[in-house]
């Protein structure tokens, strides 16, 4: 799971870390972020999650990091993994939404964006991400 990431931990009671925590605008624990090798933040979430929700959220984080750095096929694989292994988690609608985005960015001429968002409407009709693609349903 962590084969493609360097795990880095900060104790928020360590006074030596206060400057960095201020710079990170840290406010709550656990505070988890995916960073690139320059320290730029690509994804974040906080608060405790049960194991399956945590793993699904972390996979979405790594997927978004790949998407933002334009590694579209790597992002696609991670989103597919979330949907295959954790389809009932709160992270799943996000994976369904951005799976379409990853495929679209990889091949703008393809139909995958629409196909994935049809799946989103069907499988996760009450999710926030379903509303994010609502413009696709508006009369032209």
């Amino acid at each position, binding site marked *: 799971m962590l084969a493609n990431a360097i795990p880095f931990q900060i104790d928020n009671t360590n006074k030596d870390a206060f400057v960095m925590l201020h710079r990170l605008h840290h406010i709550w624990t656990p505070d*988890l972020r995916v960073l690139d090798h320059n320290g730029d933040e690509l994804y974040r979430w906080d608060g405790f999650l049960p194991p399956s929700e945590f793993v699904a959220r972390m996979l979405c984080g790594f997927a978004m990091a790949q998407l933002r750095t334009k590694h579209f096929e790597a992002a696609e694989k991670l989103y597919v993994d979330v949907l295959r292994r954790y389809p009932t988690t709160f992270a799943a609608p996000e994976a369904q939404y951005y799976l379409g985005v990853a495929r679209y960015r990889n091949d703008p001429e393809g139909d995958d964006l629409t196909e994935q968002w049809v799946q989103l409407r069907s499988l996760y009709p009450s999710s926030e991400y379903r509303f994010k693609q609502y413009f696709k349903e508006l009369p032209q």
Partner: protein
Amino acid sequence: MSGGDKIPWEHDYEKALERARSEQKLVLLDVFNPG
């Protein structure tokens, strides 16, 4: 994040970034409260 005894955490920011750069990996940052 649990399982701290199994995960080889880095605790130095610059070292974590240097490893990410040389190993072409991302960094997973976990800010935690031990209390």
